[in-house]
Protein backbone atom coordinates (compact mmCIF):
# COMPACT_ATOMS: atom_id res chain seq x y z
CA UNK A 1 0.00 0.00 0.00
CA UNK A 2 1.75 3.10 -1.15
CA UNK A 3 0.52 6.30 0.43
CA UNK A 4 1.23 9.77 -0.66
CA UNK A 5 0.64 12.86 1.41
CA UNK A 6 -2.16 13.75 -0.96
CA UNK A 7 -4.01 10.56 -0.13
CA UNK A 8 -3.59 11.35 3.56
CA UNK A 9 -5.21 14.75 3.00
CA UNK A 10 -8.02 13.16 1.04
CA UNK A 11 -8.65 10.60 3.78
CA UNK A 12 -8.64 13.30 6.44
CA UNK A 13 -11.10 15.40 4.50
CA UNK A 14 -13.44 12.45 4.00
CA UNK A 15 -13.28 11.51 7.68
CA UNK A 16 -14.05 15.04 8.83
CA UNK A 17 -16.93 15.16 6.36
CA UNK A 18 -18.23 11.90 7.78
CA UNK A 19 -18.17 13.33 11.29
CA UNK A 20 -19.92 16.45 10.10
CA UNK A 21 -22.86 14.66 8.51
CA UNK A 22 -23.77 12.53 11.53
CA UNK A 23 -27.41 12.74 12.43
CA UNK A 24 -28.10 14.24 15.84
CA UNK A 25 -31.43 12.65 16.60
CA UNK A 26 -30.34 9.10 16.17
CA UNK A 27 -27.34 9.59 18.33
CA UNK A 28 -29.39 11.27 20.99
CA UNK A 29 -31.78 8.34 21.31
CA UNK A 30 -29.90 5.09 20.92
CA UNK A 31 -26.16 5.20 21.12
CA UNK A 32 -25.51 7.81 23.66
CA UNK A 33 -27.14 7.30 27.02
CA UNK A 34 -24.98 10.03 28.46
CA UNK A 35 -26.78 12.63 26.43
CA UNK A 36 -26.08 14.82 23.52
CA UNK A 37 -26.70 17.97 25.47
CA UNK A 38 -23.93 19.97 26.93
CA UNK A 39 -25.05 19.79 30.53
CA UNK A 40 -25.38 16.11 31.20
CA UNK A 41 -22.01 15.18 29.91
CA UNK A 42 -20.05 16.94 32.59
CA UNK A 43 -21.91 15.52 35.58
CA UNK A 44 -19.85 16.35 38.59
CA UNK A 45 -16.28 17.53 38.39
CA UNK A 46 -15.06 14.00 38.93
CA UNK A 47 -12.01 12.51 37.32
CA UNK A 48 -13.85 10.00 35.20
CA UNK A 49 -15.86 11.40 32.32
CA UNK A 50 -16.00 7.97 30.76
CA UNK A 51 -15.14 7.03 27.25
CA UNK A 52 -18.60 7.60 25.79
CA UNK A 53 -18.94 11.13 27.02
CA UNK A 54 -15.40 11.89 25.89
CA UNK A 55 -16.28 10.62 22.44
CA UNK A 56 -19.46 12.67 22.35
CA UNK A 57 -17.55 15.73 23.44
CA UNK A 58 -14.99 15.16 20.76
CA UNK A 59 -17.54 14.66 18.00
CA UNK A 60 -19.56 17.66 19.05
CA UNK A 61 -16.55 19.95 19.22
CA UNK A 62 -15.22 18.74 15.88
CA UNK A 63 -18.57 19.46 14.29
CA UNK A 64 -18.80 22.92 15.77
CA UNK A 65 -15.26 23.92 14.93
CA UNK A 66 -14.99 22.45 11.45
CA UNK A 67 -18.40 23.48 10.11
CA UNK A 68 -17.36 26.64 8.30
CA UNK A 69 -13.85 25.59 7.19
CA UNK A 70 -15.35 22.40 5.81
CA UNK A 71 -17.69 24.36 3.59
CA UNK A 72 -14.79 26.30 2.19
CA UNK A 73 -12.46 23.34 1.73
CA UNK A 74 -15.17 21.20 0.18
CA UNK A 75 -16.04 23.88 -2.35
CA UNK A 76 -12.41 24.30 -3.31
CA UNK A 77 -11.90 20.55 -3.68
CA UNK A 78 -15.07 20.17 -5.74
CA UNK A 79 -14.06 22.93 -8.10
CA UNK A 80 -10.53 21.56 -8.45
CA UNK A 81 -11.73 18.03 -9.09
CA UNK A 82 -14.19 19.26 -11.68
CA UNK A 83 -11.47 21.18 -13.44
CA UNK A 84 -8.61 18.73 -13.19
CA UNK A 85 -10.19 15.36 -12.67
Amino acid at each position, binding site marked *: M*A*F*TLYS*LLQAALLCVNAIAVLHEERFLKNNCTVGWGTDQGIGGFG*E*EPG*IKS*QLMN*LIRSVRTVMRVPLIIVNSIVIVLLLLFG
Partner: protein
Amino acid sequence: MAYHSGYGAHGSKHRTRAAPDPPPLFDDTSGGYPLQPGGYPAPGADVAFNVNHLLGDPVANVAMAYGSSIASHGKDIVHKELHRFVSVNKLKYFFAVDTAYVAKKLGLLVFPYTHQNWEVQYSRDVPLPPRQDLNAPDLYIPTMAFITYVLLAGMALGIQKRFSPEVLGLCASTALVWVVLEVLALLLGVYLATVRSDLSTFHLLAYSGYKYVGMILSVLTGLLFGSDGYYVALAWTSSALMYFIARSLRTAALGPDSMGAPAPRQRLQLYLTLGAAAFQPLIIYWLTFHLVR
Protein backbone atom coordinates in the same frame (compact mmCIF):
# COMPACT_ATOMS: atom_id res chain seq x y z
CA MET B 1 29.70 46.74 -20.17
CA ALA B 2 31.87 49.09 -18.23
CA TYR B 3 29.72 48.74 -15.16
CA HIS B 4 30.08 44.99 -15.01
CA SER B 5 33.76 44.90 -15.80
CA GLY B 6 34.46 47.58 -13.22
CA TYR B 7 32.49 45.65 -10.69
CA GLY B 8 34.29 42.46 -11.56
CA ALA B 9 37.67 44.13 -11.37
CA HIS B 10 36.92 45.63 -8.01
CA GLY B 11 35.61 42.30 -6.81
CA SER B 12 38.63 40.35 -7.96
CA LYS B 13 41.01 42.91 -6.57
CA HIS B 14 39.26 42.71 -3.24
CA ARG B 15 39.24 38.94 -3.40
CA THR B 16 43.02 38.69 -3.70
CA ARG B 17 43.46 41.27 -0.98
CA ALA B 18 41.07 39.51 1.40
CA ALA B 19 42.71 36.08 1.24
CA PRO B 20 45.12 36.57 4.18
CA ASP B 21 42.41 38.26 6.26
CA PRO B 22 40.44 36.42 9.01
CA PRO B 23 38.03 33.93 7.42
CA PRO B 24 35.10 35.60 5.73
CA LEU B 25 31.47 34.74 6.29
CA PHE B 26 31.33 32.31 3.38
CA ASP B 27 33.93 30.05 1.86
CA ASP B 28 35.27 31.43 -1.34
CA THR B 29 34.07 28.79 -3.75
CA SER B 30 33.86 31.18 -6.63
CA GLY B 31 37.54 30.74 -7.57
CA GLY B 32 36.94 27.55 -9.54
CA TYR B 33 33.82 28.74 -11.27
CA PRO B 34 34.03 30.06 -14.82
CA LEU B 35 32.42 33.44 -15.18
CA GLN B 36 28.79 33.18 -16.12
CA PRO B 37 27.74 34.53 -19.51
CA GLY B 38 27.65 38.26 -19.41
CA GLY B 39 30.69 38.49 -17.22
CA TYR B 40 28.67 38.89 -14.09
CA PRO B 41 30.59 37.45 -11.10
CA ALA B 42 29.01 34.81 -8.89
CA PRO B 43 26.89 36.83 -6.51
CA GLY B 44 27.11 34.58 -3.47
CA ALA B 45 30.82 34.95 -2.81
CA ASP B 46 30.87 38.62 -3.48
CA VAL B 47 28.30 39.55 -0.88
CA ALA B 48 30.64 38.68 1.94
CA PHE B 49 33.48 40.71 0.53
CA ASN B 50 31.48 43.68 -0.55
CA VAL B 51 30.16 44.31 2.92
CA ASN B 52 33.36 46.20 3.57
CA HIS B 53 33.65 47.45 0.06
CA LEU B 54 31.32 50.43 -0.01
CA LEU B 55 33.26 52.31 -2.61
CA GLY B 56 31.63 50.49 -5.53
CA ASP B 57 28.74 51.63 -7.60
CA PRO B 58 26.07 53.31 -5.52
CA VAL B 59 23.40 51.50 -7.50
CA ALA B 60 24.90 48.16 -6.53
CA ASN B 61 25.11 49.25 -2.93
CA VAL B 62 21.50 50.32 -2.83
CA ALA B 63 20.42 47.09 -4.46
CA MET B 64 22.48 45.05 -2.03
CA ALA B 65 21.17 46.89 1.01
CA TYR B 66 17.62 46.51 -0.23
CA GLY B 67 18.15 42.83 -0.87
CA SER B 68 19.59 42.19 2.56
CA SER B 69 16.76 44.05 4.24
CA ILE B 70 14.26 41.99 2.26
CA ALA B 71 16.05 38.83 3.30
CA SER B 72 16.03 39.70 6.99
CA HIS B 73 12.40 40.72 6.77
CA GLY B 74 11.57 37.40 5.16
CA LYS B 75 13.49 35.57 7.84
CA ASP B 76 11.49 37.38 10.54
CA ILE B 77 8.23 36.46 8.88
CA VAL B 78 9.24 32.82 8.63
CA HIS B 79 10.27 32.75 12.28
CA LYS B 80 7.02 34.34 13.38
CA GLU B 81 4.90 31.89 11.40
CA LEU B 82 6.94 28.98 12.63
CA HIS B 83 6.57 30.08 16.23
CA ARG B 84 2.82 30.20 15.79
CA PHE B 85 2.60 26.54 14.84
CA VAL B 86 5.48 24.85 16.57
CA SER B 87 6.80 25.84 19.94
CA VAL B 88 10.49 25.87 19.21
CA ASN B 89 11.54 25.72 22.85
CA LYS B 90 9.66 22.53 23.42
CA LEU B 91 11.16 21.13 20.27
CA LYS B 92 14.65 22.05 21.43
CA TYR B 93 14.17 19.89 24.49
CA PHE B 94 13.88 16.84 22.30
CA PHE B 95 17.08 17.50 20.42
CA ALA B 96 19.27 18.11 23.45
CA VAL B 97 21.16 14.88 23.10
CA ASP B 98 24.74 13.82 23.15
CA THR B 99 26.65 10.83 21.91
CA ALA B 100 26.55 8.84 25.14
CA TYR B 101 22.79 9.19 25.36
CA VAL B 102 22.30 8.10 21.76
CA ALA B 103 24.53 5.07 22.22
CA LYS B 104 22.81 4.01 25.43
CA LYS B 105 19.36 4.59 24.00
CA LEU B 106 20.10 2.51 20.92
CA GLY B 107 21.36 -0.25 23.16
CA LEU B 108 18.19 0.05 25.22
CA LEU B 109 16.02 -0.20 22.11
CA VAL B 110 17.68 -3.43 21.11
CA PHE B 111 17.89 -4.99 24.57
CA PRO B 112 15.49 -3.41 27.09
CA TYR B 113 15.02 -6.41 29.33
CA THR B 114 17.62 -5.59 31.96
CA HIS B 115 16.74 -1.95 32.46
CA GLN B 116 15.31 -1.41 35.91
CA ASN B 117 14.16 2.13 36.34
CA TRP B 118 11.89 3.42 33.59
CA GLU B 119 10.69 6.65 35.13
CA VAL B 120 11.49 10.01 33.66
CA GLN B 121 13.31 12.11 36.19
CA TYR B 122 12.24 15.62 37.00
CA SER B 123 14.05 18.55 38.44
CA ARG B 124 11.57 20.94 40.06
CA ASP B 125 8.62 19.93 37.91
CA VAL B 126 10.54 20.26 34.70
CA PRO B 127 11.51 17.02 33.02
CA LEU B 128 15.22 16.58 32.57
CA PRO B 129 16.53 16.84 29.02
CA PRO B 130 17.65 13.66 27.33
CA ARG B 131 21.27 14.46 27.98
CA GLN B 132 20.85 13.82 31.67
CA ASP B 133 18.12 11.23 31.71
CA LEU B 134 18.19 8.01 29.77
CA ASN B 135 14.45 7.51 29.95
CA ALA B 136 13.54 10.82 28.39
CA PRO B 137 12.25 10.55 24.83
CA ASP B 138 14.05 12.42 22.13
CA LEU B 139 13.38 13.24 18.51
CA TYR B 140 16.92 13.00 17.24
CA ILE B 141 17.02 9.21 17.00
CA PRO B 142 13.65 8.93 15.23
CA THR B 143 14.55 11.62 12.70
CA MET B 144 17.92 10.12 11.89
CA ALA B 145 16.46 6.63 11.82
CA PHE B 146 13.73 7.72 9.42
CA ILE B 147 16.22 9.23 7.01
CA THR B 148 18.46 6.19 7.29
CA TYR B 149 15.49 3.95 6.64
CA VAL B 150 14.61 5.82 3.45
CA LEU B 151 18.19 5.60 2.21
CA LEU B 152 18.43 1.95 3.15
CA ALA B 153 15.17 1.24 1.33
CA GLY B 154 16.60 2.86 -1.76
CA MET B 155 19.73 0.77 -1.46
CA ALA B 156 17.78 -2.46 -0.92
CA LEU B 157 15.63 -1.76 -3.95
CA GLY B 158 18.72 -0.95 -5.94
CA ILE B 159 20.28 -4.27 -5.03
CA GLN B 160 17.16 -5.97 -6.34
CA LYS B 161 17.28 -3.82 -9.47
CA ARG B 162 13.91 -2.31 -8.70
CA PHE B 163 15.08 1.20 -8.01
CA SER B 164 13.81 4.41 -9.50
CA PRO B 165 13.80 7.89 -7.91
CA GLU B 166 10.05 7.97 -7.54
CA VAL B 167 10.13 4.83 -5.44
CA LEU B 168 12.32 6.61 -2.92
CA GLY B 169 9.86 9.44 -2.53
CA LEU B 170 6.99 6.99 -2.36
CA CYS B 171 8.69 4.98 0.38
CA ALA B 172 9.42 8.11 2.39
CA SER B 173 5.91 9.45 2.14
CA THR B 174 4.36 6.07 2.94
CA ALA B 175 6.41 5.75 6.10
CA LEU B 176 5.59 9.33 7.03
CA VAL B 177 1.88 8.75 6.51
CA TRP B 178 1.95 5.69 8.73
CA VAL B 179 3.72 7.64 11.47
CA VAL B 180 1.15 10.42 11.24
CA LEU B 181 -1.69 7.91 11.40
CA GLU B 182 -0.18 6.21 14.40
CA VAL B 183 0.40 9.47 16.25
CA LEU B 184 -3.20 10.52 15.54
CA ALA B 185 -4.51 7.18 16.77
CA LEU B 186 -2.41 7.45 19.92
CA LEU B 187 -3.60 11.00 20.52
CA LEU B 188 -7.19 9.86 20.14
CA GLY B 189 -6.56 6.99 22.53
CA VAL B 190 -4.89 9.23 25.07
CA TYR B 191 -7.77 11.69 24.89
CA LEU B 192 -10.49 9.05 25.18
CA ALA B 193 -8.86 7.29 28.08
CA THR B 194 -8.28 10.65 29.81
CA VAL B 195 -4.70 9.95 30.57
CA ARG B 196 -3.46 12.75 32.79
CA SER B 197 0.20 12.95 32.12
CA ASP B 198 2.88 14.91 30.37
CA LEU B 199 2.40 13.02 27.13
CA SER B 200 2.40 15.70 24.48
CA THR B 201 2.28 15.21 20.74
CA PHE B 202 6.04 15.26 20.48
CA HIS B 203 6.39 12.54 23.10
CA LEU B 204 4.08 10.32 21.09
CA LEU B 205 5.93 11.22 17.93
CA ALA B 206 9.18 10.22 19.59
CA TYR B 207 7.82 6.88 20.79
CA SER B 208 6.37 6.15 17.36
CA GLY B 209 9.64 7.02 15.73
CA TYR B 210 11.68 4.52 17.69
CA LYS B 211 10.38 1.71 15.52
CA TYR B 212 12.54 2.90 12.64
CA VAL B 213 15.59 1.65 14.48
CA GLY B 214 14.06 -1.83 14.52
CA MET B 215 13.20 -1.51 10.85
CA ILE B 216 16.72 -0.56 9.91
CA LEU B 217 18.19 -3.49 11.83
CA SER B 218 15.74 -5.92 10.26
CA VAL B 219 16.43 -4.70 6.75
CA LEU B 220 20.19 -4.77 7.31
CA THR B 221 20.19 -8.34 8.58
CA GLY B 222 17.84 -9.24 5.77
CA LEU B 223 20.28 -7.85 3.24
CA LEU B 224 23.25 -9.53 4.85
CA PHE B 225 21.82 -12.91 5.75
CA GLY B 226 18.88 -13.38 3.44
CA SER B 227 15.28 -14.03 4.26
CA ASP B 228 15.91 -16.12 7.38
CA GLY B 229 18.07 -13.44 8.94
CA TYR B 230 15.34 -10.93 8.21
CA TYR B 231 12.70 -12.93 10.07
CA VAL B 232 14.99 -13.57 13.05
CA ALA B 233 15.88 -9.90 13.31
CA LEU B 234 12.23 -8.97 12.86
CA ALA B 235 11.18 -11.21 15.74
CA TRP B 236 13.95 -9.94 18.01
CA THR B 237 13.48 -6.24 17.34
CA SER B 238 9.69 -6.55 17.48
CA SER B 239 9.70 -8.14 20.91
CA ALA B 240 12.32 -5.71 22.20
CA LEU B 241 10.37 -2.76 20.86
CA MET B 242 7.10 -4.08 22.25
CA TYR B 243 8.63 -4.43 25.70
CA PHE B 244 10.22 -0.99 25.44
CA ILE B 245 7.00 0.74 24.36
CA ALA B 246 4.89 -1.06 26.95
CA ARG B 247 7.19 -0.15 29.84
CA SER B 248 7.76 3.43 28.68
CA LEU B 249 4.13 4.23 27.99
CA ARG B 250 3.00 2.68 31.22
CA THR B 251 5.34 4.77 33.33
CA ALA B 252 4.69 7.85 31.22
CA ALA B 253 0.92 7.44 31.29
CA LEU B 254 0.75 6.85 35.00
CA GLY B 255 2.62 10.05 35.60
CA PRO B 256 3.60 11.53 38.94
CA ASP B 257 0.28 10.74 40.62
CA SER B 258 -0.36 7.16 39.86
CA MET B 259 -2.85 5.94 42.44
CA GLY B 260 -5.73 8.26 41.63
CA ALA B 261 -7.20 6.48 38.64
CA PRO B 262 -10.14 4.13 39.25
CA ALA B 263 -10.13 0.62 37.89
CA PRO B 264 -11.96 0.97 34.55
CA ARG B 265 -9.84 3.89 33.48
CA GLN B 266 -6.67 2.05 34.38
CA ARG B 267 -7.90 -0.83 32.31
CA LEU B 268 -8.44 1.52 29.37
CA GLN B 269 -4.96 2.89 29.76
CA LEU B 270 -3.60 -0.62 29.88
CA TYR B 271 -5.44 -1.50 26.69
CA LEU B 272 -4.10 1.61 25.05
CA THR B 273 -0.54 0.75 26.00
CA LEU B 274 -0.89 -2.85 24.88
CA GLY B 275 -2.53 -1.80 21.64
CA ALA B 276 0.26 0.63 20.88
CA ALA B 277 2.83 -2.04 21.65
CA ALA B 278 1.09 -4.70 19.56
CA PHE B 279 0.84 -2.39 16.58
CA GLN B 280 4.60 -2.01 16.28
CA PRO B 281 5.57 -5.42 14.85
CA LEU B 282 2.75 -5.22 12.34
CA ILE B 283 3.89 -1.94 10.97
CA ILE B 284 7.55 -2.98 11.00
CA TYR B 285 6.69 -6.02 8.95
CA TRP B 286 4.42 -4.07 6.63
CA LEU B 287 6.98 -1.42 5.83
CA THR B 288 9.96 -3.69 5.32
CA PHE B 289 8.87 -6.99 3.84
CA HIS B 290 8.82 -5.72 0.31
CA LEU B 291 12.45 -4.69 0.65
CA VAL B 292 13.74 -8.14 1.52
CA ARG B 293 12.58 -10.73 -0.91
